[in-house]
């Protein structure tokens, strides 16, 4: 995108709200961190079932935990968007931020793959090669998202 777009984004009133108060940014960061814990905790239980660490029919539990993970992700999407609007130039051309977005996109596709063709597996006590693959990939991708997120500061221009 052109520098004009970033300049326009960086000039919105949201930027002033996020950056000018000494309290808003630290509060948003605290919410972002707490919410990523909820996301990781929920996904761990689901992914460990797909990997086969435990094998039992648990479809309602998995559905609840996925809803919890999606809610936590939504909170992080909103707080993340506010970071971007508040300090746009910290994120533009930042390799760690770009990689984080790519990993989130792949994790989203991985979750869609589960929803389309693997969600039946948690109604039984089975695991399959695909479910092990999806579970492992999910854990690796989300750990990578956290690592890249933490690296953004070190790659900021």
């Amino acid at each position, binding site marked *: 995108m052109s520098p004009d777009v970033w300049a326009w984004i960086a000039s919105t009133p949201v930027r002033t709200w996020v950056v000018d108060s000494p309290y808003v940014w*630290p509060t948003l960061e605290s919410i972002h961190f707490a919410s990523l814990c909820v996301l*990781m905790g*929920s996904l*761990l*239980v689901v992914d*460990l079932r797909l990997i086969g*660490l*435990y094998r039992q029919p648990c479809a309602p539990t998995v559905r*609840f935990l996925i809803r919890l993970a999606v809610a936590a992700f939504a909170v992080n999407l909103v707080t993340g968007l506010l970071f971007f609007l508040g300090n746009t130039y910290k994120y533009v051309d930042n390799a760690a931020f770009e990689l984080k977005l790519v990993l989130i996109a792949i994790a989203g596709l991985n979750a869609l793959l589960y929803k389309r063709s693997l969600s039946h597996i948690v109604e039984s006590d089975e695991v399959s090669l695909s479910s092990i693959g999806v579970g492992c990939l999910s854990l690796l991708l989300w750990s990578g998202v*956290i690592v890249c997120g933490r690296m953004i500061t070190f790659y900021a221009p």
Partner: protein
Amino acid sequence: MSMLADLEATALSEWLSISMLGFPTLIALHSVGMAVVVGLSLIVALRLNGLVAGIDGQLVARLLTIAAWGFVLNFLTGLALFITRGTDYIASGIFLIKMLLVIVSAIILFWLRERLKPVDSTSRALVADRLSKNLSLVAATTWFAAVVAGRLIAYLSDLYR
């Protein structure tokens, strides 16, 4: 205090402070460990208090063990981060509050792990008394408070200015 200064002067501490592989890697691993231990402690607290169903006693014990490994990762990475700036950390009030919260949370985590260990490998039922249920909620709260306190170290101390 002089011991902390001595630690800061070691070659390991200096490498951790200046290397791009040192400090950022430690802090990134610290974040992953945080997500594991805090996230799973919350799920276990929700399970013990009836807000999540379908996780049996065997699985609760395993989740607590994984959470404990997340804590070990964070203990080690936290210790490595600490030796780089020990004298500054120890002088920061918000860091000491975080440590207090982590100690309380970790004691409850390891206590719950012992308390909720299945009596034999065939038993799947979850047997949790009132104390375990209440303490799991205390730990979930103190873990999240520790996360917030940890983040606030960047703002309420002079460590990263």
